[in-house]
């Protein structure tokens, strides 16, 4: 997709609740990078800095009976679904109170109807199965699955598109097109477009080029209703930007590309547009996350009862 002009337009005011969530995710992710930097976290993690608004926008469009299938870059997806930064941080740090007792970690969360996995593409057929079940048992509910642009290289994606379209399933595929997969720019790994691929399967495609939550919801609400009630699978493609490294310290992009992304960061744009509302909320969420980091870091390691 081409450069979104809309991203540089002044962002309209968002509800306090939405702004709080955006900032919670931002500070949560920054805190993780900081914890890694200080050697407090093991393994790896992928932060969604720059992409926070995608799950926040979708939050109002999804309900409790809907399934959400997340991927490796899923902290924002989780926090938009559950107001539970403590549980997620504890999970990542392997501390008491962890959502999955610390056995899942950053990429493998399972809670109610929320599932994430780190293997790219493989959750699409699984989401398709969940959608088939929902169609039969809970009309009006849908399965939502998040994937990156790079993941469109995986064959499983196309098996799922075919099945979902053929069987008219309530499947919502949310593409976070951030222009890069690890170190490989999209132009070097994708022939054609996401739109044309979706269309080839008779699946409707809708592109989003703004980070304005209200506009996104307004555009998507009728389309999502069609997914729910008419069994029309939908691909929503967000043109977005990954501001940080792929995981930690592995950003291979030239500085001007990162600069370009930063200039489009909702965070700066929003701060400029609504300085007072922003400053208050930013400070509050920063403090909230700092307190959570302190609390969770001090907890004992998580455990579980294998016989429970």
């Amino acid at each position, binding site marked *: 997709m081409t450069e979104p002009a809309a991203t540089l337009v002044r962002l309209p005011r968002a509800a306090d609740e939405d702004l709080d969530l955006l900032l919670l995710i931002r500070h949560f992710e920054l805190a993780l990078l900081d914890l890694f930097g200080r050697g407090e976290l093991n393994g790896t993690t992928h932060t969604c800095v720059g992409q926070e608004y995608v799950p926040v926008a979708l939050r109002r469009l999804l309900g409790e009976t809907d399934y959400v299938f997340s991927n490796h870059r899923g902290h924002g997806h989780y926090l938009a679904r559950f107001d539970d930064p403590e549980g997620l941080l504890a999970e990542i740090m*392997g501390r008491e109170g962890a959502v999955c007792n610390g056995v899942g970690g950053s990429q493998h969360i399972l809670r109610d109807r929320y599932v994430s996995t780190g293997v790219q*593409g493989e959750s699409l057929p699984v989401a398709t199965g969940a959608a088939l079940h929902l169609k039969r048992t809970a009309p009006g509910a849908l399965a939502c699955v998040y994937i990156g642009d790079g993941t469109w290289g995986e064959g499983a994606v196309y098996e799922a598109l075919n099945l979902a379209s053929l069987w008219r399933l309530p499947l919502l595929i949310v593409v976070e097109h951030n222009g890069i997969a690890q170190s490989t720019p999209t132009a070097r790994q994708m022939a054609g477009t996401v739109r044309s691929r979706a269309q080839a399967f008779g699946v409707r495609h809708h592109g989003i080029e703004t980070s304005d939550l209200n506009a996104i919801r307004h555009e998507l609400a009728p389309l999502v209703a069609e997914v729910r009630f008419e069994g029309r699978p939908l691909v929503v493609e967000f043109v977005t930007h990954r501001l940080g490294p792929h995981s930690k310290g592995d950003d291979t992009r030239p500085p001007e590309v990162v600069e370009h992304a930063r200039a489009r960061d909702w965070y700066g744009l929003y701060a400029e547009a609504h300085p007072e509302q922003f400053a208050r909320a930013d400070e509050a969420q920063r403090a909230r996350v700092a307190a959570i980091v302190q609390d969770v870091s001090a907890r004992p390691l998580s455990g579980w009862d294998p016989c429970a």
Partner: protein
Amino acid sequence: MTTLTLAKALNEGLRRSMEDDSKVLVMGEDVGKLGGVFRVTDGLQKDFGEDRVIDTPLAESGIIGTAIGLALRGYRPVCEIQFDGFVFPAADQLITQLAKMPLRSLGKVRLPVVVRIPFGGGIGAVEHHSESPEAYFTHTAGLRVVACSNPADAYTMIQDAVRCDDPIIFFEPKRRYWDKAEVDLMAAGVPLDRARVVRQGSDVTLLAYGPMVKTCIEAAGAAEQEGRSLEVIDLRSLSPLDMDVVAGSVERTGRCVVVHEAPVFTGFGAELAARISERCFYHLESPVLRVGGFSTPYPPSRLEDHYLPDLDRVLDAVDRAFTY
């Protein structure tokens, strides 16, 4: 002699292979500009160009399938699977195409494809990034399966693998990538399908490959202080298996402990235990014992020390071998 890390030794070996034979190609996710997540292919795209070091989309099945097609036309592709846990989307191409085509054609079709897979845990990574899937491939007739354990072997084994006309799954011990050792860049090395006695001993034979070789050498050092003499064998090739070296050792020591990171249940150690009992039955003083991972998904990083076999677990098995 040059001091190299294991990752750099592989890099040098690949470079040599590419210099020697213009049909050698490298392909995989982020192998070009980035040089691979572990930098094993670092600098190769710069020096050999984008036609020979190919950054692919995320498409494991496509990578292996394309490599098969290239190999059919005389190329020698070296594919990188980014992490052990990401090899499974390529399972059909590996098991049904790559392994079977040469056998089905009674050897008329040769497929000199090398599939490099960083495997095993110990780097604090998660599930999919720490697994040991070797037994899936040793179970597949038609594939060679090898694992290097140290920089010197890494350097020669990767070159031998590239020269070999058979498909090879080449396992690299990811937590040993940063281990350094002297490497003789002129040496030919032990043939690819041979095991090697890396430490001589007379009481118990320890069988290992990849990352566990170092653990076993350390265990042998510790056991020596307690007056026990452990022989350590680096299998190097899992399929085919060099049973002569294994049996020669076990017949002398009478006791054997197999060590790998993969789950014990139907792991590669099960095959070793069965073969040894078939071939060395009258020499055995105790059953062949196995030390390995548990039958669970690979645990999160905080728990991996409990999961991975370590010196204590190896020495405990050695002790048990004397209780029969």
